[in-house]
């Protein structure tokens, strides 16, 4: 059984769904999502050419406790009904944890895709979720040796396999679709630009951080393209900084863009400035290969840093600006290989499950 919830989970599980199909292995595909973006996620699944989920459950929840409780009960009922040989979950959301917990209590083995990531910052709910999911999983699919070492250090009981990250598979599989479907580049004012994303609460909810971002983006030596999340837009407006940003000739704000447009932007930009974890990985895919500045204080993906793709620069405008300048001046030489694998992660996961007799 393959369970997906959020959009990043759908992207990262898509190669696995295809790998199961390719081998004609039976599987049950489950989609669990928040009611407000449930239909959009269903549509997204369709756009990626994935089969319609066999089970979909949508839930409405105001609080984390309520959310986890709803998914626990829904996941339990579907696992009880289907009686799968295993349940594969991805990532580190409350949904991932709830599905994994319901499954392990029914004595069905859980496989965690993207196991062993650690930011060592327990204030992040994701850190708590992924750590717990790792400790209840029978199969841990670590994207890298670093992730595997984290798991060994914590003496998890399940079996660990380093498979690479399925996100690299996903980029290779989806960039073709992006070429066909995306027209975003017709709307971009700049030939060379830095692509910005910011979504983490500790960044967009902090007026000081926002102030620094506005300062850096309006003074950046390379123009900025910034698909902006409605929540960040609201915060900027509340802080009376939106006008300065939107009027700057150096900045192009975009409404939130879809996956295919975003892949296209990543492929066309000169560098990426982000606080997202997944983008740090996607940027290293052979079809993308872009330098990344990480606007956070820590990262659970040190491999991109070590390999020379990414740099953790924090949230101060001075440091951000000097990092942008340095990358442009150096004509940054990008490494050839992604530290997140060769794009065959899904194949390796399926192969492992077949060998274990778990399919």
């Amino acid at each position, binding site marked *: 059984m393959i369970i997906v919830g959020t959009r990043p989970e759908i992207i990262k599980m898509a190669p696995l769904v295809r790998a199961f199909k390719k081998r004609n292995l039976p599987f049950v595909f489950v989609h669990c999502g928040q009611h407000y973006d449930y239909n959009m996620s269903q549509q997204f699944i369709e756009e990626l050419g994935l089969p319609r989920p066999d089970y979909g459950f949508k839930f409405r929840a105001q609080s984390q*406790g*309520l959310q986890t409780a709803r998914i626990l*009960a829904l996941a339990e009922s579907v696992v009880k009904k289907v009686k799968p040989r295993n349940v594969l979950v991805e990532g580190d959301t409350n949904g991932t944890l709830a599905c994994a917990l319901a499954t392990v209590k029914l004595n069905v083995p859980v496989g965690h895709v993207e196991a062993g990531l650690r930011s060592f910052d327990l204030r992040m709910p994701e850190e708590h979720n992924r750590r*717990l999911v790792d400790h*209840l999983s029978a199969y841990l699919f670590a994207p890298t040796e670093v992730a595997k070492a984290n798991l060994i*250090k*914590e003496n998890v009981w399940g079996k660990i396999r380093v498979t690479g990250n399925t996100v690299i598979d996903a980029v290779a599989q989806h960039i073709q679709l992006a070429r066909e479907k995306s027209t975003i580049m017709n709307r971009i004012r700049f030939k060379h630009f830095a692509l910005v994303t910011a979504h983490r609460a500790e960044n967009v909810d902090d007026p000081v951080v926002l102030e620094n971002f506005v300062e850096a983006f309006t003074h950046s030596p390379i123009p900025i393209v910034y698909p902006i999340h409605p929540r960040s837009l609201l915060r900027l407006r509340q802080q009376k900084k939106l006008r300065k940003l939107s009027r700057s000739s150096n900045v192009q704000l975009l409404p939130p863009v879809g996956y295919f447009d975003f892949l296209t932007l990543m492929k066309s930009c000169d560098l990426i400035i982000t606080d997202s974890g997944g983008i740090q990985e996607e940027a290293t895919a052979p079809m993308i290969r872009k330098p990344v500045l990480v606007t956070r204080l820590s990262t659970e993906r040190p491999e991109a840093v070590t390999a020379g793709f990414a740099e953790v620069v924090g949230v101060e405008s001075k440091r951000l600006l000097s990092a942008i300048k340095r990358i442009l001046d150096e004509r940054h030489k990008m490494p050839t290989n992604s530290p997140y694998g060769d794009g065959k992660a899904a194949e390796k996961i399926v192969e492992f499950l077949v060998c274990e007799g778990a399919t």
Partner: protein
Amino acid sequence: MRLMLVVGARPQIIKSAPIIREAKNHDEIELQLVHTGQHYDFEMSKIFFDEMTLPEPLVNLSVGSGTHAWQTGNMMIKLEKTMTEHRPDLVMVPGDTNSTLAGALVAAKLHVPVAHVEAGARSYDMRMPEEVNRRLTDHSSSLLFAPTKNCARNLASEGFASKAVKVPGDPMYDSLLQHIAAASRIDILKKLGLKSEKYAALTLHRPENVDDSRTLGRIMKAIISLKLTTVFPAHPRTRQHLEATGLLARIRENAHIKLADPLGYHEMLQLTKHSNMVFTDSGGLQKEAFWLHTPCVTLRERTEWIETTGSHANILVGSNPGKISRAAARIMETPEIKTKLKKIKNPFGDGHASQRIISEILKSR
């Protein structure tokens, strides 16, 4: 400091009692006792609270029984409300039940520090829901109270920082010492028609033993064939299964098996202390038998209380009839066995675990 203590199942109340008493000695602690109602509603377990002379809980969630996911989820919804309303500075969760896990998960999500009492116990058998619960609770906690050094080693092997792990001893042992005098005043032996050291005691409640009629039958037949006077205080669920599988009639044909209603804490201590041996699949009773120098035959493949298995004080037999009878024979044939067991060092502390736990909590502020 507002200290919220989340309990639900009976063993958790036993573990919490000495901590609650110690907390009362410190004016700076405002204790918020929360009862999830995992096994019984508070009203039904009130007798038990009275026996332990515990205060009424601040909040009763009355969640009731259900599937694991349903029960955990419902506890989470109600605990989230409770914690948001009462704003504890620290949430303490004892043991390894769904209440333990739900308390730890909700607190961690609300960024309230979690202290786990009985941290680091491991059976390394993930088919046991308790093993899942205690692992996840440990990994949600910032303060881990390990009952033994071995438990602390388990935590170290999972990468916990040594400053987060304390080894105060086991508050369940504190509880036993605090209640053993009261227990000795209870005449349960007479009530059940037993003579000291002329009987065995049996408890069974784990789903893998009780829910599968073949396993339950195998265990019961093995125990019946021992021809030992055996008291069997049966959990209502266990009794239901015995009835459904026809084993109840079989037990009634054998006068040496004495079926009894579930017993209180004091009664159970007294019964254990004076028995030749106990057969059990419970985690807590393995420890209590160990502390009372009564040999234990554990009807499980693995135990999280590996500390009790030295010198054959606790023999693991699973549900294998041959192993059950060999273990019983070995115990009966060892002369002066209780005197021998008295000499084994107790790794669960000195009976002052609760004082250390409370003092660490005050230091953690």
